[in-house]
C-alpha cells in the first residue's frame, strides 16, 4: 500500500538538544525529559517510533483528493509551507474572531475548501493529517503569535488551568505547576507541555490529540468533560502553548 517508505534512520535526539538549548534558569522540561531512556529512544528512532506510521499516513492523505470539490490539501499548499505552522497554533483564521487549533484549521479546509464532511474528534485521518503538518515543525520552537485578539482567550485558558474542579477538587496547576516532577503513584508528574501533539501515547496504543489528553485529566479528577467542540480546549491550548513558548515541537512524540 505504502510506497516502500524506506525512511532513513533519522535520530532526532531531543535529549541532546535539550541539554544544549536551555539555560539553567529555565526550569521548563518537556515530558520527553521525564521519560526513561527506552521511551526516549523509541521517540528518537524514526524507524521504531510508532507515531511515524501516522505521519506516513498523513503524507498519503495530504495528496489525496477529497470532498465534493475533489481537492487535495496539496492542491492548495506545498507541504514545505507548513513548516512552523504547528508551532504557532491556535490562531484566529482570516475573517473570524475566535481562535481555532490545528485540528480546527484542518477541518475548516475540509469543509470550506474540499467541501467534505468535517472529521469527527480523534478520527485517525484527522490525526494523521495533523501529525504530517506538525511533523514539518519538528524541532521548531513553539512561537505563539502576538495577535492581541488572542489575549482574552489565553487568559480564559489560564483561568481554566487554575480552576479547581471535579469530585477530587483539583486543578491542572496543582499537579503540573505545583507538583511537577513529583511521583503520583509510580508516575512522574510532567509539566504538561503540549509540544508533542498529536502524541503516540502507549496508554492509548495509538496517536491522540491534546484534547483527548485533557479529557483524560478531567476524567481522572472526576470532573465533567466539556463537549469536544467546547471552546475551553482551545483556550487551554492557547495558554499551554504560551507556557511552553520556546520548547521544540517533537511531533510525533511518544509518551507513556
Amino acid at each position, binding site marked *: *500500500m505504502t510506497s*516502500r*517508505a524506506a*525512511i*532513513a534512520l533519522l535520530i532526532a535526539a531531543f535529549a541532546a538538544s535539550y541539554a544544549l538549548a536551555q539555560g539553567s534558569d529555565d526550569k521548563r522540561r518537556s515530558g520527553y525529559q521525564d521519560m526513561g531512556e527506552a521511551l526516549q529512544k523509541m521517540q528518537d528512532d524514526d*524507524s521504531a517510533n510508532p507515531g511515524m506510521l*501516522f505521519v*506516513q499516513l498523513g503524507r498519503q492523505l495530504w495528496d489525496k483528493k477529497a470532498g465534493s470539490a475533489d481537492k487535495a490539501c496539496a492542491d492548495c499548499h506545498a507541504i514545505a509551507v507548513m513548516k512552523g505552522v504547528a508551532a504557532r497554533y491556535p490562531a484566529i483564521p482570516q475573517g473570524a474572531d475566535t481562535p481555532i487549533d490545528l485540528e480546527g484549521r484542518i477541518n475548516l479546509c475540509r469543509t470550506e475548501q474540499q467541501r467534505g464532511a468535517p472529521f469527527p474528534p480523534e478520527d485517525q485521518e484527522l490525526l494523521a493529517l495533523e501529525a504530517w503538518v506538525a511533523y514539518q515543525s519538528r524541532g521548531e520552537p513553539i512561537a505563539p503569535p502576538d495577535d492581541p485578539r488572542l489575549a482574552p482567550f489565553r487568559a480564559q485558558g489560564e483561568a481554566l488551568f487554575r480552576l479547581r474542579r471535579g469530585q477530587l477538587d483539583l486543578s491542572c496547576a496543582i499537579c503540573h505547576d505545583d507538583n511537577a516532577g513529583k511521583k503520583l503513584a509510580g508516575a512522574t508528574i510532567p509539566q504538561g507541555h503540549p509540544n508533542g501533539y498529536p502524541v503516540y501515547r502507549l496508554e492509548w*496504543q*495509538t496517536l491522540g490529540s491534546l484534547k483527548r489528553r485533557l479529557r483524560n485529566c478531567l476524567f481522572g479528577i472526576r470532573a465533567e468533560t466539556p463537549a469536544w467542540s467546547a471552546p475551553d480546549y482551545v483556550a487551554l491550548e492557547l495558554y499551554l502553548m504560551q507556557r511552553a513558548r520556546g520548547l521544540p515541537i517533537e511531533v510525533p512524540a511518544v509518551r507513556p
Partner: protein
Amino acid sequence: MSNVLINAPKTAKSGELIELKALIMHPMETGFRPGTNGRIIPRNIIQRFVATWNGEEIFSMAFSPAIAANPFVSFFVVARQSGTVELHWTGDEGFDVKEQVAIAVG
C-alpha cells in the same frame, strides 16, 4: 488501509550483515479487554510475520496478543544477492499485507 514502514539499506556488500526493521499499523487487540459496553472486544491480532528474499524465507515469527499494538520487528540477514525482500503479515479478520523493498548487493 494498511500502513507499513520498512527500514532497510538500499545497497549492501555481498556477505554484509544488514538489519531489517519493520513497523506496521495494527491494533493488536488482545481479546482480553472489555469495550465500553463491558463486553470483551474480540481478538484481532497479526498472527504471523514472514520475510523472504527473492522468494526464499529468511525469517518468520508467530505473534501472540502480547505483541504491542503497531508491531515493530527487527532482525538481521546476510546480504547475498540483489533482489527483493518481501515482508508479509497475516492475521485475524483476514489481515494480509505484503510490502517489498529492493536491495542492491554488489
